[in-house]
Every structure is written in C-alpha cells, then in structure tokens.
C-alpha cells in the first residue's frame, strides 16, 4: 500500500561535541546548515561524572570525547544563536542529568524561551551506566531518586521533553544478545516507572502521561533482519507492559518511541572503509518497518575504531540518512512486514525469550537488585566472552578482520591523520575560563543556592527547582555533584568478571596453559597480572575480556574495575606483587595516564615490571608509548586473545630472566 503522503523522516542527528562550548557551538551550527535536523550533545567525561575541569580526576580528559560544561556561561556559549524553542536537543547525560537539564532550562530562560516549549531528551538512564557505560557517580538509590525527580518535574513543567531515554543501545555494545537487550531494557523501564508511581507527588491520573513521555534508545547491529524484528518485538512488549502493569488506557501513550545509534562494537579497525557498508545496512534495520521505525537516528562514522571522527567523516554518515530518507522510496509505503509469517514468528520468539529473562530479573527484585547482585552484568560479560570467542574461532565472520583479510592499502587511511585530534590547549583554556567565572560570580548567591539544594534533598523535595536556581546563581558542575557525593559517597558497580566455567580448551588454549604453567615454575608461583583502567574512561569490555582470558590461560588476575587513579594502580601493583601490568584505555587519554603510571612505577621501584597497553591507540602514539617503556600496544585489530597472552607470557619470562 502506498501512502497518500510521503512520511516525514525521522530526526537526523550526529553525536558530537569536543574541545570547548564555543568550538562545539560552531560545529553544531555547521551541522544544522548541512541539513541535520536535531542536535545530539556529547559531553566530556568530567562533565558526565560531575567534576569541574580543574579537578585532579579531569586531568587529560577535558574537552576530549565531548564538550566540557562547568557552568551556565558554558551552556549559553554552547547554544549561542541556536534558538532553543525551535531546537530538538538530545543530551547524552546521566549521573548529572538533573544538573545539565537545569543548565539547559536556565539557558532557555535567559534566551527568553518558556521551558514548556523545550523539546528534546536527557538520556538520564543510570542502570545502563552501572551495566555498561560507566559514567555513574552516586549509588543506585539516590541516582534513581534523581531520575524520578526529573520525570515528576518535567511531566508538567516541560511537557514536550523526554526526561529519560531507556537505553538498550549500550547493552548491545557491552555484548548483550538480542534477548538480553530487550529484557534488560524492559526491566530498567519497569524500575523507573515503579519508582515514579510510588511517589506521593505523582497522582495516579498523571501516570499515563508519564508513560507517554518515556522513550527508548536502541542499538541496531549487522544482523539487520533480526534487529528489525527486535524493534517490533519491543513495541509490542511495551504496549503490553504499559497496559497490564500500569493500566494505561490510551493507546497513544503506550506507543513505543525510540531513537537509535547503530552498532559501533562491530565496526573494525581493519579495512575501516567496510564500516560504511555496515552502517548503511544497520540503518535499514531500524527504518524499514514503518510500524517500528525510529524517531531519531544517529550514525557513527567509518573511522569509529580508529579514533574520533572529523567533520567530513560525520558528514558522510549524515548523507547516508539523507539519501535513505529523500532519495529512496522508503517513506512512501505502509508497513512492509505486517502479515509476514516469517517476521511474526521471529517477533513472537524474541518476545517469549525476553519475557522469560525479564521475569527472572523481576523475581530477584527488579533491575536495581540485578545491578547490585551483578546478575545482569555477569550475563553481559559472558555474552561478550562468547562473542569474542566466536570471532576468534571464525564462527562469526567479520570481513576484513578474521576473513578476507587480504587488502590493498586503504585509500582512506593513507597518508595524513584520519581522525580528529583535540587541541592540546583545550584543557588549559577551559580551566582558565572556569577560574575567571568563579572569580566574578556572586559567592553568597552560590552558597545560598547550594544550601537550597541540600535543604531540598533533606526535605525530600524535588531537586529540580533548586538545581535550576543553582544554575542561575553560578554553581559549577563539580559543586552540584559534590553535594550528592558528600551525602551519598562514591559508588563502584560490580565488575561482572566472575568465575564462569572455563571454556572447553581448544588446541591453542591447551598449549598456552602449558606455557603459562612452565612460566609459573620459573617464577616460583603462577604469573600474576594486574589489569588496570586508569582515568575516567568507562570502556570496560576490553579489560573484562582480558581479565577473563588471563584466568583461563592460568594466570592469577587482579582487576578492580573502572576509574582508578594512576597512584591506585601503582599501589595495587606493589601490594599484590604482580608480574605484569596491563592497562586498558579507549578514551584517548592514554598519553597522560600511561606516563603517570610509568612514572609512579619508577618511583615505587617497580620499573622492571613490564607494562602493556591496549585500546584505541593511534600508531604514532603507540610509538611514543613504546619509547617511554611500554612493552606492547594492542588495538582492536588484535582480536586473537591467545596470541596476546602468548606474547605476555614471553614478556614476563624475559623480565624474570633479566
């Protein structure tokens, strides 16, 4: 059936931001001029975790993977000449979402825009931060409280705003199977809605509207037929859950609204030009079925596994969306799959399996309990382990990585840098601006606003009004988060690296175990490895898989999870008496952090312990690290973990013999 009118396309976004508010503003305006129809703000890691740019933990991270926003003037600069009343802005912000939304509202007010006009999304999903994304700051209880405050606030004060995006995207990036992705997202949404429903200030009559404001953020992997079925399955499940569990009568409020970023985990460093084809196919998965079409889409760039994308790289991905929406006939038809028995069967099976897993999580007390007892995280780590093993063994074929590896030199990566390098002075400049801002603001107002926030928390009042006042008063990101840190302390989520059954030994693994055992005889005890993640980087997949495999080859493994300081890593290395240290860094701050660890080791007299580094490390940086004393550098193309451990065993053996 052709439609009488061509459908309007989904919102085109590009996830971007770096260096400074001003530089990012310029980038946003350029992107809008190219036909992008919404904004998607990437914040830097200090902002996401609630530290000001001049905090010790922010060192090396300011303006790197996103824009640093410390206070209202940064936010104003970010949206300078962008009329917020007419913009659709998505902000990837979670632990500090209430604060960044407050800054956004305050900025709108200063632009003369009524907050009721604001449309967009705060990601604001803390559960997947504990499970995958890693930018949590406070423990689950107060974090869930912040989320429900935002929902309760915005449902009336910002009726066009999506206060939360329940994310299954990051679960797939952490290794989730399709069924896990569906089940854990639903469990997450239920935890949030249950919390909101329990609030005395949200009348039962408002619950239906609250449900109507809940949106999702999905992934779309390369198995694009199954992904299309997944979207349909989630739409059906959501309809059923909201009807049965929350009694939402209005079918429109039960509609499954979702945005997408297509899969990045499967994008390769090897033959990176192939990625553009993967991205196109993945985009099809979430646009083909009209009844389960995404509302907004953002696509990664072809050079995803190399480093940060440049403007041209992002433009190329935007053009994919535009060609799909404007050149093809996709938007002229009714749903292509209604009535297909093949699709219906797949959808039914996904729903059944997802419900089963969902029930398991609900039975253990719901998503929050299943975060704290590490159940969901363990399952994700297990799935990722299985995925990587399948790639190693060729059961999953990845073109250019583990098959069809013969290649001409890539015309795209030849010669000059093929990634964005953030200006090394960005951090210094940002800190200067921050200090100048602090010097000129009204200190009394700031203190009063912070006290107002503390009072609101103590009285159990909604923190949003107090936070918006704090934004106007000139409170900084670190100060706002500091209030919560002082009250609730730091939280560390379970690592999920548990004792799972060692896989059946294949030939290389068996050989490797022998080598490691011999190494143990040489050393007088089994080799002991410290897997460390310095800095604010939350990419844990690599470190987790290295830890799991280290145990499987017969090593004793110390892995303490993400976000350690270089000093903590040195202390662990010393106290634990490890034979080798493996650092994993994907956020691009390896320059500073690896040097700090090496320096600390020297001071502790541990310079003879070999150090290896893995992650997103461009070639010329790898050379610098080697010069500084790093023994090996591994990047995503090194998918053969057994080979990596063979090399590490040799390194340890050489170091012991020396």
């Amino acid at each position, binding site marked *: 059936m052709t439609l009488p009118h061509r459908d309007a396309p989904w919102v085109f976004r590009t996830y971007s931001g770096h260096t400074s508010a001003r530089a990012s503003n310029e980038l946003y305006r350029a992107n809008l001029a190219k036909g992008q129809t919404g904004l998607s703000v990437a914040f830097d890691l200090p902002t996401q975790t609630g530290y000001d740019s001049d905090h010790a933990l922010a060192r090396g991270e300011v303006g790197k993977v996103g824009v640093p926003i410390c206070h209202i003037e940064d936010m104003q600069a970010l949206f300078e000449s962008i009329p917020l009343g007419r913009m659709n802005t998505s902000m990837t912000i979670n632990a500090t979402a209430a604060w960044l939304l407050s800054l956004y509202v305050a900025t709108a007010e200063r632009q003369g825009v009524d907050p009721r006009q604001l449309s967009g999304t705060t990601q604001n999903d803390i559960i997947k931060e504990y499970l995958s994304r890693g930018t949590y700051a406070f423990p689950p209880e107060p974090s869930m409280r912040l989320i429900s405050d935002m929902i309760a606030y915005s449902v009336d004060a910002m009726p066009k705003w999506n206060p939360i995006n329940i994310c299954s995207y990051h679960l797939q990036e952490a290794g989730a199977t399709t069924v896990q992705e569906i089940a854990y997202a639903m469990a997450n949404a239920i935890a949030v809605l249950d919390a909101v429903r329990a609030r005395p200030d949200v009348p039962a009559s408002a619950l239906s509207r609250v449900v109507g404001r809940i949106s999702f953020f999905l992934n779309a992997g390369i198995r694009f037929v199954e992904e299309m079925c997944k979207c349909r399955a989630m739409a059906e499940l959501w309809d059923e859950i909201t009807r049965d569990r929350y009694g939402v009568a209005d079918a429109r409020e039960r509609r499954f609204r979702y945005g997408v970023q297509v899969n990045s985990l499967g994008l390769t460093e090897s033959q990176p030009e192939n990625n553009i084809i993967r991205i196109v196919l993945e985009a099809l998965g979430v646009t083909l079925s009209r009844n389960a079409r995404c509302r907004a889409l953002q696509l990664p760039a072809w050079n995803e596994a190399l480093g940060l994308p440049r403007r041209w790289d992002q433009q190329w991905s935007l053009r994919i969306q535009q060609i799909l929406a404007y050149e093809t006939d996709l938007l002229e038809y009714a749903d292509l799959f209604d009535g297909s028995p093949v699709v219906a069967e797949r959808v039914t099976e996904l729903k059944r399996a997802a419900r089963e897993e969902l029930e398991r999580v609900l039975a253990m007390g719901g998503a929050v309990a299943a975060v704290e007892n590490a159940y969901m995280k363990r399952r994700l780590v297990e799935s990722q382990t299985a995925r990587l093993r399948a790639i190693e063994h060729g059961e999953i074929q990845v073109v250019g990585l583990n098959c069809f590896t013969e290649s001409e030199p890539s015309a795209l990566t030849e010669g000059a840098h093929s990634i964005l390098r953030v200006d090394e002075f960005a951090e210094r400049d940002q800190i200067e601006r921050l200090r100048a801002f602090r010097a000129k603001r009204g200190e009394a107002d700031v203190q009063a606003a912070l006290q107002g926030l503390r009072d609101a928390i103590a009285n159990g009042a909604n923190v949003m009004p107090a936070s918006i006042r704090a934004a106007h008063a000139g409170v900084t990101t670190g100060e706002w988060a500091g209030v919560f840190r002082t009250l609730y302390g730091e939280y560390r989520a379970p690592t999920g690296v548990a*004792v799972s059954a060692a896989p059946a030994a294949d030939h290389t693994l068996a050989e490797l175990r022998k080598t490691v*055992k011999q190494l143990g005889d040489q050393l007088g*005890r089994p080799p002991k490895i410290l897997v460390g993640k310095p800095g604010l980087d939350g990419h844990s997949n690599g470190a987790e898989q290295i830890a799991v495999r280290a145990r499987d080859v*017969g090593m*004793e*493994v110390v892995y303490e999870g993400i976000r350690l300081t270089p000093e903590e890593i040195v202390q662990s290395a010393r*106290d*634990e008496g490890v034979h080798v240290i493996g650092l994993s860094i994907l956020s691009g701050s390896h320059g500073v952090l690896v040097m700090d660890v090496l320096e600390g080791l020297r001071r502790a007299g541990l310079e003879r312990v070999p150090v290896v580094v893995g992650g997103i490390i461009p070639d010329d940086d790898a050379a610098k690290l080697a010069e500084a004393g790093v023994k090996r550098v591994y990047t995503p193309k090194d998918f053969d973990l057994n080979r990596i451990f063979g090399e590490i065993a040799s390194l340890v053996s050489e170091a012991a013999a020396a």
Partner: protein
Amino acid sequence: MNLLDDRRPGRREAALGLLATLERAAAAQTNAGAARIGITGAPGAGKSTLLDALVRRLRARGQTVGIVAVDPSSRVSGGALLGDRARVRSGARDRGVFFRSMAARERLGGLADATWPSMAVLSAVFDVVFVETVGVGQSEAEVTELVDTLLFVAQPGAGDVLQFMKAGILEHPDVFAVNKADVGAAAERTAGELAAGLSLGAQADADWRPPVLLVSARDGRGIDELADALAAHRAHLVASGELAERRRRARTAYVSDTLERRYGSFGVERIGGREALRARADAGHGAGFETALAIGREIEAALGKPA
C-alpha cells in the same frame, strides 16, 4: 611478600629463614602482636564489603590494618580471579592499610600456602590482620586454626542456618555478623535463627558466648558494635590466657600441615609419623617457622637429600 609465595626450593628455604628471624624478633616483644581475625561466610555474603566498612572504622580509631584475601583457583586452568580487592576500597591511597590477594591454588580448604607466613609478617607491622576466605564447610575449620578470632558473615535468607548447623560450622566462629541488615525483616529472622541455633550447640570456648550482630556494610549500621565485639573477644583471649593457646594451636597446624604437604606421609614417617610431628610442632615456639625449618632439615637428612 613475593618471597613468601615463591615455591622454588631455594626461595622457600630463604623465606623460612627470614621468617624465623622475624619470629625471634617478635618473641622479644612483650605484647601479643597484632590481632588476627579470620572472616568467612558463603560467597556473596558481603565479607569484602563488610571488611571495607570495618577497616574504615578501625582506621578512624587509629589502628593500622593488614589484609590477606584468598580466592579459589580454577581446577581446569589453574588461574584465578582475585576479586576481593575491588570491594575493599578503603585501603586505596592509605599507607595504613595493606591488601594482598592470594589464590588458593591446589588447596581446597579456602587458604593458600602463603597465608600463614603472610599473616605472620603482617602481624609484625600492623595492629590488626584480617584474612578473608570464602567458604561454607571445611574452610572454617582450617582458618579457625590460624586466627585468634573467627568472624562469620551470614546473609539474610532462610535455610542457610539449618545447613550451617548440620555442617558443624557454628562451632568455630567467635563472632557472628548477619550482614545486609538494611534489607529488613529477613535479616532479623536470620539473626534470630542463628542465636537459637547457637544456644543449642556446644562452643569450643566455654567462657565466651559468641555474639550475633545485625550489621549493614551498606548503611554502616552495627559496624561500631562489630568492631567492639572483635576487640572484646581479643580482650577475653588475653585475659583468659586463651590467646597463647590459640597461637600454639596455629603453630601446630601450620608446622604439621606444611611439612605433610611438602614431604608426604613417607617423609613424615622418617621422624616417627604424624603424631610425633604434631607433638614436636606443639612443643615448638613462636609462629613455628624455626620449628618447621628444623624438622624439615631432619626429614631431608633422613630422606638422604642434602640439607
């Protein structure tokens, strides 16, 4: 610490020699050295998290703390994930806390060969020494032989207590903590069952009634009381003379265990068999390192190996 964990023959001797020296130095001190506390309980009971909370409290009271945490090794690969350190964050950036993870290797009882030597060394340096080990069953018996005070961590949930009673686990601990009290009624129920179970069974030390405390590592409730209870047990041991008895028991266990493992029953026969070995360990001194060294040399001489 690395030396204590080294199995190469020469290194093992060197380590024992060093320990023996330390032992003589310790003997010269008048006080009884560090308080040695074992922590056991089922996997996931919250031992590490509780330890973290306890360490914070002890540090606030001005005491320094050494910790040894033992995790099981994979039977298949021989590797091990040493996960406790990730939960005991109070030691990070604090020189008054030392944390060492250990794999149990081929031992099944929840301890590692290096546990006792490490505890001895840490005892010379820190005020309180903890050893965390997972386990329900055999490991309680093993760890209880090495420590002055055994803390058992239980978590809320019915059924457990009955099993503990059947397994005879309740005889050993000196202090019981029912963790996760923040979950509410279930914790109180478990504590009640434990207390009831305890009143039935016979305790090893007739003069000490093991307290059952409700604690929460998460919200901090009961931690002060727990620290007090551990200190009270220590005071009881000192006052009653039981401390010396426990240290003697530990020595015997360590010396006979380490020599039996090393030389097997064949070697032990050379010096008159198991009972004789235990008797000599019993009559030895200090932590038993010098005793172990001496008896070991005798066995080797009897076996015809160069000493």
